[in-house]
């Protein structure tokens, strides 16, 4: 039966049917695809970040090794200097070096006994 009143609704009949995706809406497939792409991108980004950290740490390990080698070398130098210092301060070296200074041994020592509480004091 034909409608008597004018309708403003486009009748379904005669009009081509469009799916939600055709009308621009996101359907399940698209969402899945998008999710997959995002997931891959995120995984890729995290992987990249992780690899970068690993490489960075590994390269820092090399730097640490270098610094440790430097520390070891400096410690060796320190030990050498300490040993040289010990030899210079050894009694044998002192005796040899003072031999040329023409020092004379003390033959007597006098001890001063302060009297009346008066005493001359030398301070540094």
């Amino acid at each position, binding site marked *: 039966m034909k409608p008597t009143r004018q309708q403003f609704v486009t009748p379904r009949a005669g009009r081509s049917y469009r799916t939600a995706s055709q009308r621009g809406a996101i359907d399940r497939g698209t969402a899945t695809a998008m999710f997959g792409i995002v997931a891959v991108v995120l995984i890729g980004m995290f992987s990249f970040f992780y690899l970068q950290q690993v490489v960075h740490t590994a390269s820092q390990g090399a730097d640490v090794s270098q610094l440790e080698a430097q520390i070891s070398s400096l410690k060796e130098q320190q030990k*050498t200097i*300490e040993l040289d210092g010990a030899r210079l301060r050894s009694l044998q070296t002192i005796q040899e070096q003072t031999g040329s200074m023409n020092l004379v041994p003390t033959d007597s020592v006098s001890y001063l006994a302060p009297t009346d509480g008066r005493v001359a004091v030398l301070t540094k």
Partner: protein
Amino acid sequence: MASKVHVRTQILIAGGFILLAILIGRLADLQLLQHAHFMDIAEAQRKRAADLQPHRGTIYVRDGKGGDIFPVASNKSGWIVYAVPRNMKDPRSVADTLAPALVQFRERQDQRKRDIIQQTGQNDFLSLHPSPSPEPSESLPGEQAGPSPSSSPEPVDQIIASIAEDLFNKFDQKQDPYEPILRPYEILDDDLLHFLQEKNLAGIVLEQQEVRAYPEGSLFAHGVGYVGFDGTARTGRYGIEGYFDDILKGDLGFLSGERGGTGKIIGVAANEFRPAQDGTDIVLTIDRVVQAFAEQELKTGVEKYGADRGSIVVMNPKTGAVVAMATFPTFDPNTYYAVRDAKVQTNPIVSDSFEPGSILKPVIMAGAINDSLATPDTTFVDNGPVRVGKYTINTFDGKHYGVQTMTNTLEQSNNIGMVWVAQKMGSERMYDYLRRFGIGERTGIELDGETQTNLTEPQRWSDAQQATTAFGQGMVVTPIQALNAIDVIANNGMLMQPHIVSSLRSSSGDVQEIAPTTVRQVITQDTASKVSAMMVSVIENGVARSARVPGYYLAGKTGTAQVADPETGKYSTSNKIITFAGFGPVPDPQFSILIKLDNPYGLSFASGTAAPMFRNLAEKLLTYYQVPPSYDASAVQPKFQVP
């Protein structure tokens, strides 16, 4: 036609499948069946593991005045060299190149050894102890006594040729990964090092190692000891190095990890790391200035009086700390192998036992006075030699003075007076006091090689032994035991534990101070005071006047003991041991000294040899410790009386 093409295609496909099957089979073989083999190869390429060597602890002595500490044993880097024959293309050429340099190195080493033997007084020691072998364990395995350039009459060319041949025999082994070139204790000197670096010979490897260094040279050598080799392992020998070897050497660490292409450890890969634990540092009670005084005086005395050997010990009688410990002839721990006789490395102060002679008299006298059996003024009559059993006992000089006090007995070192004291005391009491004074047991001092002396049980003493023990014969002590016993008298009757370590400092920073230890009260303070005064009288009025330092009261006792001949079992008529034991200043002693001379020339007594040495050393110590005089030496003093 179409069927032919079809057949060829099928054959091609079949061939492809067969090839694929072969490849898959090969892959399966490599990755599954031979998995373990290739894993091992890969790990061997990547993984590295090594022990981490700790640094050996340092040994320090003090400077009593400034409080500083000075290392007497430390570490340094030294170069060693060895051969890897499997890396040599031309072992003959390497041997011929190396031989002349090695001969020159040996010449320099031999000259250095001769100089050290001369400087340390060992030439004279050798003439009396002719035993020229160095420690055999320090030789290379299988090493024969090859020609030495300086000792061999052969021309140098022949020596070089002989050494070149020995080297070639070592190097001409294609699979050999290691051959030593020098002895384990030898490190390269500058000349040989520069030569090898310049030549850069294939198969000759230079390597740096940590070696022991003794910056003070022969100072306190017997007390420090040295680090030698037991096979290929370094080990401390004698002295502090030997006694504390376990804590000085520290603990090995461990490192394993994976290395990258450049050889560096990969930080993020799995690895195991346990750091090495460095050895503990040790600070001694030795004062290096006093040590130098003692060594100087000892060297002068041994040479002047023609003794075989001499020792001096200086202690702090109040704490038991050993302040100086010297023996001459000595050695240099830097070149410990530069010795003519290994006996020179032993420390006689702790390891040699000897009959103390008259320096033991104050100890016996203290026992008698402590038990109220005598006083300083108790008298006896000395009319001449006395007979005890089948033996006749006389004074050392054959003189007799009639009525004598106990003080006179010590002043004149009268053996007959001491026999009288021994008869008063009896064997049991004498034995008891000797043990309480520390005789017959180890002191426990922290030095390697301390001897355990034995004191015969009193039940087995004959009358003669009782008599001779009273004047220090027929029984043995070590020098450290003897001085430690005298220190009881100096220290108000208290026996202290002798010690030579002041503190231990671990690599983690912990410091453990070693406090003085009181062993026991042996005699009363009053007895100690009386015997001290009697010993002062020995120096002021008795046979030890040559030990007197004007202005100070020093206590002392001479000792001249006969030495038993090991071949005959009787006392030698020529050999003797001269000793002097003393302390001062009385009544507040700062130091005690024991001087021992083995077999000085001629008819020498302690009064003419060891006593003046005591005086010289005491004078230096009194000045060093800044001890003011007890009286005005320029004024006329009344004769010293025992109070």
